[in-house]
């Protein structure tokens, strides 16, 4: 899977992630591995324990396909099983370059 756009449809558990923008300043800089995911939150295993971060209104930096991507949390604010369908639909509907 070499298409970075497919991060929206991919499983996030196990990926390395960092919070780079958040309305809560204490959350900025939290980084680690995602160990669980719900519809509205990500659970990140950090050096200081497991942190639960809301997806909406946050910006995440994630390693995927040997690249570092910046992802707006609102784009992934779905149940993981729903995101496969909705993620692909979002990429197909995007204007500009054709990614799929």
């Amino acid at each position, binding site marked *: 899977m070499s298409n970075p*756009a497919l991060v929206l449809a991919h499983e996030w558990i196990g990926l390395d992630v960092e919070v780079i923008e958040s309305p809560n300043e204490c959350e900025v800089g939290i980084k680690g591995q995602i160990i669980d995911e719900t519809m509205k939150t990500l659970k990140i295993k950090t050096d200081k324990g497991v942190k639960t971060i809301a997806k909406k209104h946050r910006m995440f930096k994630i390693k995927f396909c040997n690249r570092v991507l*910046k992802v707006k949390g609102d784009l992934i604010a779905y149940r993981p099983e729903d995101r496969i369908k909705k993620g692909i639909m979002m990429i197909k509907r995007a204007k500009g370059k054709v990614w799929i």
Partner: protein
Amino acid sequence: MYDFLRFVPDANIDFGFENYVVFAESKIKVNKFYKARLIKAESVNELISKLKRVRNDEIVGVYSSNLKVNREAVMRKKVDVLLDGVDRKLDYKTIKLAAEKNVIIEICFSKYVKANNLMRLFEEDLELIRIINKFDTPFALTSAASNCYEMRTKKQIYDFFSFLGANIKSAEKHAIKLIREYYDPNFILDGLEILE
């Protein structure tokens, strides 16, 4: 940040814009400016047949004085911009649909230079900007100049439309997003970018 034009300006021209997007019906050389395809259509069939000839990797702007054509254009994935002119027709539904389909509505200054009935234009643009603000529809404030005498500085254009109630920052954001969609290799979609 970006101005939409209908002609290729002089390369050394400086009106305060970062760069220019040149809309043209035929293939032209645009030097350092961004190239875009202009489609003029007076019927839906004409629009569809012209859109079939357009490649996926170029910015497409549609200009029509027919309301049905504009509504059809908004629903097409290839169309990026609804271009403005003296006799462009838009209604409430089309503007709302443009917000859903992410089609930029151009509001231009050159029609005020050309037109005779200014009061009608003011009334139409005030109503258009009111609906745009209501639905957060993508829009761009441009000069839409077809010759160098219709061009204006960025400050003049933005001051004029901010007086009519347009959100300048939002207009700039949408114009930058349009360019990034086609010319930035690291931009995938709004909210998803490649950093490294």
